[in-house]
């Protein structure tokens, strides 16, 4: 145990090990943060949610930080509403239960491109008389454009670009660029724009709420995908899923392999024979094909795939490697001493044989994590990812099947790919360093 502790202290002499440990800690931290910030059920709801959850976001929007990398500035998407005060709303009461309201939102537009779309989501409460609103658009050069006059129903959506009347009024087919440019020259105007909505309600309890959604070219920290989903959710949640899959699979595989090899070597006879035969049969089985078969026919749940992965990975060449070492250890003096004092078979296997192998087990365990993390991603890329859970592999698969590389949505593939890469390299670097620490024979060369 003392030597084990010393070995761990040696880690600090290996820069790659420090980088690896740093990455692993970062991942664990991200995983915990993700699970605390977005609870499991919420994450599933967001990830599986369609238009009703994500209507505020534009499709295929790169992350907002690409503005730092590009000389041309893109418009950032936002959504404001009167219900939570992000959009100002003033109500003035009039005679006989009538009231007027005024909602406005002023924003600074400094982009080099026109936004994709602007939408008003209007909702109102009334019993008989429909409230009435009118929307106006104030440009930085002081023009005031009347957008629309509407009698409101309970719930209503108004899309700027789809309004025929507005099109005729502005004498254009593209409403949005017309609203953001000089009518004479057609040049884009930057500056403060204001959306002003005035409404009139004719009943005492009647109320009007407005939500203004602005679809720019870029969105948030990570951008959005084809279903308008904010990629922050799957990117964050990919961390706990990848960690859980990688760690459970590698831990399960290495520990079970070692235990089975130890039991086989110790008891010998038919047990050993059986283990060897199973290993040989398993080598004949096509590993990836069987996982694809299980994924296609039986269940795409990540836990079923995990179980199958562990089962198929136990009886591999590793069991033969462990066996050859156990055969040597079995003959050593301390095992003979244990036998002499009458230790039981299970005692010898679990307390004397297996602990001897821990220096071999730990580097192997850490080094095999990336393989399993990437296995999950590989299955997802083949379309066999977990249908419920958001994972990095699923993002890549979505991006690939929507032609992200052809259509230039590089962020969509690069974000999960870089995270996967960092995870894989982190564990691999740590594993390599541990291997050299625990097996000093390799350290010399």
């Amino acid at each position, binding site marked *: 145990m003392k030597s084990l502790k010393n070995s761990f202290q040696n880690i600090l002499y290996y820069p*790659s090990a420090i980088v690896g440990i740093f990455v692993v800690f970062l991942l664990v931290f991200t995983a915990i943060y993700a699970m605390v910030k977005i609870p499991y059920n919420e994450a599933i709801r967001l990830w599986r949610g369609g238009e009703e959850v994500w209507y505020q976001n534009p499709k295929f929007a790169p992350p907002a930080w690409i503005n730092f990398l590009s000389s041309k500035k893109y418009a950032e998407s936002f959504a404001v509403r009167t219900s939570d005060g992000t959009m100002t709303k003033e109500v003035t009461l009039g005679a006989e239960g009538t009231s007027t309201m005024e909602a406005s939102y002023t924003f600074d537009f400094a982009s080099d491109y026109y936004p994709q779309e602007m939408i008003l989501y209007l909702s109102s409460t009334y019993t008989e008389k429909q409230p009435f609103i009118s929307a106006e658009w104030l440009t930085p050069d002081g023009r005031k454009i009347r957008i629309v006059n509407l009698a409101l129903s309970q719930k209503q959506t108004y899309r700027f670009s789809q309004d025929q009347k507005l099109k005729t009024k502005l004498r254009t087919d593209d409403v949005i660029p017309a609203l953001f440019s000089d009518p004479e020259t057609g040049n884009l105007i930057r500056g403060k724009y204001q959306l002003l909505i005035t409404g009139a309600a004719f009943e005492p309890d009647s109320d009007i709420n407005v939500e203004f959604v602005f679809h720019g070219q870029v969105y948030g920290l990570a951008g959005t995908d084809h279903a308008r989903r904010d990629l922050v959710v799957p990117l964050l949640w990919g961390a706990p899923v990848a960690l859980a899959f990688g760690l459970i699979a590698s831990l399960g595989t290495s520990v079970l392999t070692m235990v089975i090899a130890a039991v086989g070597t110790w008891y010998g006879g038919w047990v050993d024979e059986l283990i060897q*035969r199973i290993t*040989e*049969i*398993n*080598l*004949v*089985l*096509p590993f*990836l*094909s*069987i996982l*694809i*078969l*299980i994924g*296609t*026919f*039986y269940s795409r749940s990540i836990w079923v795939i995990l179980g199958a992965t562990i089962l198929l990975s136990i009886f591999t060449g590793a069991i033969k490697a462990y066996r050859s070492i156990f055969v040597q250890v079995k003959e050593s003096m301390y095992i003979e001493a244990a036998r002499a004092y009458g230790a039981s078979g299970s005692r010898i296997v679990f307390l004397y044989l297996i602990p001897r192998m821990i220096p071999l087990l730990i580097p192997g365990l850490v*080094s095999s994590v*990336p*393989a399993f993390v*990437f296995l999950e*991603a*590989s299955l997802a*890329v*083949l379309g066999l990812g977990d249908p419920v859970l958001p994972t990095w592999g699923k993002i*890549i698969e979505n991006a*690939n099947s929507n032609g992200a*590389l*052809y259509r*230039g949505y*590089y962020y969509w*593939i*690069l974000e999960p*790919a870089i995270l*996967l*890469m960092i995870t*894989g*390299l982190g*564990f*691999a*670097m740590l*594993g*390599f360093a541990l291997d050299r620490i625990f097996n000093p*024979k*390799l350290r010399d*060369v």
Partner: protein
Amino acid sequence: MAVVTQSPTENTVAKRTSHTNTFTRVSRYVVVRLMVLFATVVVGVYLTIMIANMGGFVDQIMKGEIRERVTQTIAANPSMRQADPAVRKKLIEDTIVKEEQRLGLDIPIAIRNFRYLSNALTLNLGRAMNMTSDSGSKQVRLILLERLPATLLLMGISQLFLFFSSIFLALNLSRRYGNFWDRLVVTLSPTSAVPPWFYGIFLILIFAALLKVLPFGGMVDSPPPSNPFDYSMNLLKHLTLPALSLVLSSFFLSIYNYRTFFLIYSSEDYVEMAKAKGLPSRDVERRYILRPTLPNIITNFALLIISLWTGATITETVFIWPGLGRTLYQAIGLYDIPIIVGSTIIYAYLLAMTVFLLDFIYALVDPRVKVGGR
């Protein structure tokens, strides 16, 4: 493994007995080994068949699909519009029965499994259920043969390049370990934790999407160039990225492994001795380092050759390369058990054959090893 020792006094006697002994030992070994390997193949393939139809679950899916398809085609047939509903219903049922008979779904799954097994073991690969080859055949043999060249080309070029270049570079590095290149390889060896398709995505991004110099995927342009020279250049262009990603993903680890392996052998006393004798380093490498590592290198090479058969499923899928790996993936998606079983049995036979032959090859290259010896 055993060391052959013979004392010179009993040379003549020992020679004759050892000769007959060798013959009986080798033949007994061959028989036992072949039987064990064959049993392994049988069990392995049977398990694959069991998994490939999920204990009959796939039958349900297929029956449902047949019913739907037959009903649709007959409903869409204009000449059937006027027919009596009862007649139409009978026609549908009859067609379904015929279709199920064609696919063998009327026979119980347990019997069918053994039929698949015996057909597979005799390499009677039969006909595919849903897939067809590009030439229109449903023969599993033809479908697989049609895709074989694509996989052999991709895997062959990348794996052979990887094998020879990493041995060559590893020998060079082991000669002067600790220098800049050696440390670079050691530092970069964790990059092999990343699978080839993943490098593929990055390569597509750089060379196809951004620089637009190489194609996104596929094997040749459509329509393919008629001139053989243009055709091969076009093929090469399409081959570059998938081959590069396959090489890239194992390059550094492969060099690292061989290098460490060679280093262990080059620290042996007899290597020091040879160097002290003043042998040129080429001879030292060839006779004293490569020779004892030969069994290992041969094993790796043999495994490489079999890996050519399986192809690289995901890399081929990402690059839309029409190879065996992608075919297998498509076959699974179409519930095409004969193709899955056909691919597995050939792999199993190849593996068993290789394992069997390797024992003899070890005995050939390493005089200390006896076939069947203990």
